[in-house]
């Protein structure tokens, strides 16, 4: 064991050193960090692919790449962003690091399984990357792998499908671990309704991961069988049913959207009370809205298929449920706003990101209702409007919540602080760049610009150009933010144990946390958000 030269107290970062001690660590905090670094690398790769696509679309016609390259790029951009970055994202990183601490446990229920999940994840991620480059023949089906094209496309679709299957397995194991952890590992006195709301959101998420992911797993296996063994489950030429594939795919992939967004909601639900120094408004409604989203979200998949030829009755049914699932999300928005109302609001970088989360998520949510209505959907289906909508939800929602989370928990994770000024500057670039990148896509989408097109009518050029400028600003903001965080983690000022005066358990232990989190397992005697002992500094 190597002691740190600064004679800092031993913590999870320095109690053992060397790459091997990380690769074999079953410590939930180290595993969470390993997820974070992996995800950050893949995020940067996919973001660069996104930027290249935007550069291609600066002008009509071919600019920097061929149509086939473009098809491969949006496919691999989607596969990386969805399966490697956003679905594991918050749950695997901050869930791993903070779930056990926030419920007063020393680790997750199955620490070895947790490490195993990371290796499964890495295997899937490498396979995904490999599918892009093997034989110079990247998949061009889009991340949705729609048959019959994915059954016929002469590219590395089988490798990409296998990657998605393996990544799904990692997701299932993480979800399983979290459910058991929350059921069995809560500290004495921590009843269900004394549990903080980020763990609650992870609980709802974990059930979706557990119950929806196997469906897409078997579906992807069937497509693999279709390609390798010529069993035509979904190929109409062999008697199969392509719409059946869409059903099975979206039975998972719509709930997967809630796998992405529920932990994001959980993160900002932690941030608003802390930076308002006020108990969260409506604890119980937030809990039940999370569970309601998980439950109802399971039954709205058909809204991806309004133009696929499903019956009128099922279109009506899925449209109705889509409107229904918007209600619990709206409840949460009102809860967050009411939490800030009358509080002593401290506009530090985490809160800045959390507030912009509400703004972007609300735009994404409302445009989701536009797409959920049957009539407007017919007009907007497969246009850039859809692309703008889901980037507002996934990037504006989950992405900004991730940025909020890293700025919130950074001092706890590293025991150091980043520079606030540069964090605020990066926020300006990210927020402006994001809106400039995606808002024009709403407009040209309504005007009829289809998604996934390499070329376009010159009349769309203003919108496309604005969007590309936004992409550059956004990337610039990302560079500033990541540099600021990396610099802060190495050379930042030493952070106190509780810089934001938070009240949940992670703020009651040293920064960085000791290897086993707590010297003594805490006993919980009251609800989580009680600010009735105002600090005096």
């Amino acid at each position, binding site marked *: 064991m190597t002691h740190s030269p600064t004679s800092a107290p031993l913590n999870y970062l320095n109690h053992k050193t060397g790459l091997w001690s990380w690769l074999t660590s079953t410590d939930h905090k180290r595993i969470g960090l390993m997820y974070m670094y992996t995800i950050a690398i893949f995020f940067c790769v996919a973001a660069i692919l996104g930027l290249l696509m935007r550069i291609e679309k600066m002008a009509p016609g071919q600019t920097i790449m061929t149509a086939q390259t473009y098809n491969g790029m949006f496919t691999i951009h989607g596969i990386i962003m969805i399966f490697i970055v956003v679905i594991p994202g918050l749950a695997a990183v901050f869930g791993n690091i903070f779930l056990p601490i926030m419920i007063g446990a020393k680790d997750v229920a199955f620490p070895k399984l947790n490490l195993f999940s990371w290796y499964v994840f890495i295997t899937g991620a490498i396979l995904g990357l490999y599918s892009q480059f093997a034989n110079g023949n990247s998949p061009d089906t889009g991340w949705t792998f729609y048959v019959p094209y994915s059954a016929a496309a002469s590219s590395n679709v089988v490798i990409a499908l296998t990657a998605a299957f393996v990544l799904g397995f990692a997701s299932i194991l993480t979800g399983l671990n979290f459910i058991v952890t929350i059921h069995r590992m809560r500290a004495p006195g921590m009843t269900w309704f004394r549990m903080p709301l980020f763990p609650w959101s992870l609980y709802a998420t974990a059930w979706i991961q557990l119950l929806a992911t196997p469906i897409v797993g*078997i579906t992807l296996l069937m497509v693999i069988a279709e390609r390798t063994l010529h*069993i035509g489950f979904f190929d109409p030429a062999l008697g199969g049913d392509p719409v059946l594939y869409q059903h099975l795919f979206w039975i998972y992939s719509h709930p997967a959207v809630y796998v992405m967004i529920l932990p994001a909601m959980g993160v900002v639900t932690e941030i608003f009370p802390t930076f308002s120094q006020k108990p969260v408004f409506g604890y119980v409604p937030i809990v039940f809205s999370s569970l309601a989203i998980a439950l109802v979200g399971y039954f709205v998949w058909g809204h991806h298929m309004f133009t696929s030829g499903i019956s009128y009755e099922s279109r009506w049914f899925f449209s109705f449920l889509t409107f229904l699932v918007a209600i619990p999300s709206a409840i949460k928005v009102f809860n967050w706003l009411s939490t800030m109302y009358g509080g002593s609001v401290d506009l530090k970088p985490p809160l800045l990101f959390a507030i912009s989360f509400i703004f972007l998520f609300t735009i994404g949510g409302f445009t989701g209702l536009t797409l959920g209505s049957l009539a407007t959907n017919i007009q907007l289906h497969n246009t850039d409007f859809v692309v703008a909508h889901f980037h507002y939800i996934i990037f504006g929602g989950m992405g900004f919540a991730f940025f909020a989370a890293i700025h919130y928990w950074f001092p706890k994770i590293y025991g150091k602080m980043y520079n606030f000024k540069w964090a605020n500057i990066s926020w300006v670039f990210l927020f402006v760049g994001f809106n400039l990148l995606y808002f024009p896509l709403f407009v040209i989408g309504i005007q009829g610009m289809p998604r996934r097109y390499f070329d376009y009518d010159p009349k769309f050029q203003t919108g496309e150009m604005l969007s590309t400028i936004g992409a550059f600003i956004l990337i610039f903001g990302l560079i500033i933010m990541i540099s600021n965080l990396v610099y802060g983690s190495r050379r930042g000022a030493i952070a106190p144990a509780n810089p934001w005066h938070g009240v949940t358990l992670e703020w009651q232990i040293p920064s960085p946390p000791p290897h086993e989190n707590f010297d003594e397992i805490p006993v919980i005697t009251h609800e989580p958000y009680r600010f009735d002992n105002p600090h005096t500094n």
Partner: protein
Amino acid sequence: MSTTEHSEFIDSDTGKLGMWLFLFTELFLFGGLFIVYSVMRSKYAADFHHAALELNAFVGATNTVVLLVSSMTVAMSLTAIQQKRAGKAMGLLFITLLLAGVFMVNKYFEWGHKFGLHLYPGSDVMKGLPHGEIMFFGLYYMMTGLHALHVIIGGILLTIVIFRIKSGKINAGHYLLQENSALYWHLVDLIWIFLFPLLYLIT
């Protein structure tokens, strides 16, 4: 390894909860295939009827009995370990493995017979069949193949359990791995209980 000092012992209720959740995911995995089966069956009722006649219900029934008995022996071995009779527990697990072997040999001959008739995906004979029959055989190979994979995984788990009993790591006080492996084996049995009527009996 000191990093795992608080994680060496997973208490039995926690371990079993995890296993049950995992079994749910397995049911959902096969559930996807059952959905496809139902949709295709209603679409191609007559073809499914003809194709199902190809399957030998006697072989299927034999395998059902074999798996049911193996479920019994695996449960008995758990009782044996709780009664501190390690030798008997290992013997019963060994019988379970033998029965798993019988199941797989049966399966081998069953598949081999169909391959002999050129009834496999992509063969010329298959391509000449009506769509519904191709679909039936496709589902047959996919479902029984995935199930056979589970039999193999279950067999590996039970083999590990035998060695752990032998080395004393599994004993009357600590038998979580054996209990979870037995649960897994029951799942293998349960899935087959559904596959058998769907593929062999309903014609």
